[in-house]
């Protein structure tokens, strides 16, 4: 295990692992100091470390839920901005709409990464993940709805026939006033 590297994620810049449970002194480069007995120490600390681990798992779960709820604030802000942007097609409203579409999509793509730090075999991440996905999907839906109100979704017949070429005619009739 590498030293000096944060394992607990945010808030801790470095840590030293004191809980080296290996009993064989030969595995270490430096011999144990005289009078130091590994076996006795292990027995003393085990209860404390379990407690610590539980606290950490709790903390992780809590954080995961927090992260999962984060898009909700985003959603509200997006909604406000969309309302501000109005329903006419111009640069601002298009920009907002596309960012409203892009954010949930990119967030959904990175679901695994967002919850990586809270991965723990003791923490159940399914709930937060589902909430996170649901909220982002909600954001996406909001974006699509905005797109539709702007009239940029091909949901009308007019969107599909606007470039339809004229139908061919079977008959041909010509003629002019005589020369």
């Amino acid at each position, binding site marked *: 295990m590498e030293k000096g590297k944060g394992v607990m994620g945010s808030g801790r810049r470095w840590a030293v692992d004191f809980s080296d449970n290996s009993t064989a002194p030969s595995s270490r480069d430096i011999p144990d100091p005289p009078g130091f007995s590994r076996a006795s120490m292990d027995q003393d600390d085990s209860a404390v470390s379990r407690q610590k681990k539980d606290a950490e798992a709790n903390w992780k779960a809590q954080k995961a839920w927090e992260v999962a709820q984060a898009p909700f604030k985003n959603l509200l802000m997006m909604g406000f901005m969309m309302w501000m942007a109005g329903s006419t097609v111009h640069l601002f409203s298009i920009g907002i709409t596309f960012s409203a579409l892009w954010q949930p999509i990119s967030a959904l793509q990175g679901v695994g990464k967002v919850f990586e730090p809270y991965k723990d075999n003791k923490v159940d991440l399914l709930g937060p993940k589902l909430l996170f996905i649901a909220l982002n999907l909600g954001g996406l839906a909001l974006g699509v709805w905005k797109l539709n109100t702007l009239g940029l979704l091909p949901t*009308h017949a007019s*969107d599909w*026939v*606007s470039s339809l*070429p*004229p139908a061919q*005619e079977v008959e*041909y009739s010509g003629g002019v006033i*005589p020369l």
Partner: protein
Amino acid sequence: MAIRSFLFLLLLFFSSLNPILSLYEDQVGLMDWHQQFIGKVKQAVFHTQKTGRKRVVVSTEENVIASLDLRHGEIFWRHVLATNDVIDGIDIAIGKYVITLSSGGSILRAWNLPDGQMVWESSLQGPKHSKSLLLVLTNLKVDKDNVVIVFTNGRLHAVSSIDGEVLWKKDFEAESLDVQQVIQPPGSDLVYVVGFAASSQFEMYQINARNGELLKHESAAFSGGFLGEVSLVSSETLVALDSTGSILLTISFHNGKISFQQTPISNLVGDSLGPAAITPSSVTGIFSLKVNAITIFIRVIGEGKLEVLEKTNLKTAVSDALSISEGKQAFALIQHAGSEIHLTVKPADDWDGNLLKESIKMDRQRGLVHKVFINNYIRTDRSYGFRVLIVMEDHSLLLLQQGEIVWSREDGLASIIDVTTSELPVEKDGVSVAKVEHNLFEWLKGHMLKLKGTLMLASPEDMAAIQSMRLKSSEKSKMTRDHNGFRKLLIVLTRAGKLFALHTGDGRIVWSHLLQSLHKPQACQHLIGLNLYQWQVPHHHAMDENPSVLVVGRCGPSLDAPGVLSFVDTYTGKELSSLSLAHSVAQVIPLPYTDSTEQRLHLLIDADQHAHLYPKTPEAIGIFQREFSNIYWYSVEDDNGIIKGHALKSKCTSEVADEFCFDSRELWSVVFPSESEKIIATVTRKLNEVVHTQAKVIADQDVMYKYLSRNLLFVATAAPKASGEIGSVTPEESWLVAYLIDTVTGRILHRVTHHGSQGPVHAVFSENWVVYHYFNLRVHRYEMSVIEIYDQSRADDKDVWKLVLGKHNLTSPISSYSRPEVITKSQSYFFTHSLKSIAVTSTAKGITSKQLLIGTIGDQVLALDKRFLDPRRSVNPTQAEKEEGIIPLTDLLPIIPQSYVTHALRVEGLQGIVTVPAKLESTTLVFAHGVDLFFTQLAPSRTYDSLTEDFSYALLLITIVALVAAIFVTWILSERKELQEKWR
């Protein structure tokens, strides 16, 4: 999807569009050109006094009076009179006024010679219609005034040339007097009026020119009668023909005594050659006679004795006499010999004593000499020199002097009767067109200048250099096809039967071709009704073929006269072949089919309703047979008020087997009641019009389907009483009916009556709409109406899923027999102008919005957005409709001064407006022709698909270079700084 996003961008663009399309002053002449012509010269009067500029005043068949510079042939000034104001005669009085007699002799005008301003105008009335004659008495001076003698409408007027006041007038009551000549014997105050009465009576009146007093009236009868023209051989002798055309009469009325001398023509020329005709001229003692193709010159030697001077079968033209010194006259004679013309100037009293004999090489494409006008000048060695103005068969005007053509004017272009276009050759590798291209340095210099201009650093000289560089850009006049399709050939056919190819870049004549084969006398006597069609337009697989056009004409005025065809290569102007047809040509129908060499199939309908297929190849007949049952045609008989529809039946059942000839049968007819309706206008869509889409998206994403049938005919009928001039009927007895008729089935799709309105109707049909212009008698204003026609039977096809999956039948072929249900929308507006012509812009793909091009009565072309003529306009459009671009309804169509396409210019005598799509979708080429020609490029929705001409590439380039340099510099700086940071 790409198209949709494109359309979306377009929509964005339109929403920011303002309807004014104008031009900056310095843009004039960049894309447009204007040429001025005068038409075929009828009469010319020289004005070559020692002081002042030498000029010639001419009147033409296009009703133009113009003063031309004799040195270069340029126009000093010009007036185009109205089409019904035909010029009968011109002359110069008191050395500074040009006198013109026009409108059947009822209007006499004087124009100031130096600047062409009108000085006075007199209206001359008379008891009856007659020949009109103009005579300026130059040697009769009354207070420095020349008296102008005008014989018109059976009355003789003497008019003062200073103010146009009528000094005296004299009626000729003799009910059937047909006045032939008004003569003034030199050096006397007398005027002779001579004419024929009751076809066998010769009448002579002697009148005092000072007060109009009748001094003497003599008449004599000649039992043989008189025929045609007379020729004046002296001031008291006339030569005429008897009614059989075989006896020459010398009529002398010396001292009021009339005597006839008869000389049979056969006595003079040996044997009888057929009917003769006198060529009118005014050479003393000599007249010329045309017998068949032979010209005979005869001298009158006292007492009615005649002597044949020359007999020639060369084509000959003679000028009037020119008095060169006291009592001496000379005249010019031009004879054709092969590719040369021989000009001889002879004195009137000595046939063999030539004053001048020259041979001049003449372009065969100019045809025969039609008219000769002679003028003299005094050389430095005090001898006489002669200059001759000649009018050719192709209506061009040339000045000959000292055996050379000094200048020439292509005035045939003043009477264009048909226009089509042709692409230019594709630029081939190895062809050194690159020569015209500027070299790199020049290019860079030009752009640097432009950049200076944009940054407002340029001095006035630089500005002038920029402007001339823009105008002379060699790019636009290259002889190869360009990427944007701006460079094309305009193929125009003139009334003289000559084809010209004009380059759209600068309007120069690339080639010209007189349709010789159509002019051969044995092939065709009176060629009329010429029309021009695109015969072969190679693209795709027939690129190595040259495009060609078809010229169709008819030999004679009757409908049964045989037709002639001529095929002309549009790259070279050479005639490929010509055909004299055995059948007549009543209609020409270009079919929408082409063969493997891209020759378009044409159906020629003859007077007996047989259809003849051209080209006569087995391949063409194969294509034709496949579509046999789907080809129809209609004929409009506007005299009878009938429109008939026809279909093909079978091969012709004549004795001569002709597999390209087909019988036809009548399918339907629409008969308009002759007592209440008379056809005054018909119009259809252009065959080559491209429509982008069948759907029209309206507000709230709704869709309307356009009824886009090519087989629609717009017909306007008016009450027979109301077909005359505006204001000749009361509103109650005048009405106008507009019809939309399907020409396959004869079904009337729409009919609307405008009560109290009358013609003339000018209409234009495009896509699914027709716009027409007429006069509303009730409100005394011109109106324009629009009818749009929509297909209601498709209106329900709005299921998105069907459309997404393509499970609709919107693009499947439709038949007129399916009786589609249509609805029409229409609206009318007032319009300020009366108009001469109306057209609509056409673009390559039909996406760009349309503009109407209106040829106004002031001979200008006005562009009017079609959006102003939208039947869905309402007084208060909803928000959605506003977004769609609907303009609030007003009762008057706006005329925005900036939207005159012709800006400050006028296309005198405007006849037609032709629009041709360029390859660039935004741009359309507009050609307006009349007496003048005008060409320009138009972008009805602005040039959204290209950079403007004045875009500064240099600025762009410099910006890019500067940006790249800045990127490098900042990158280096940041690298350095980072290094320093690391060392700290």
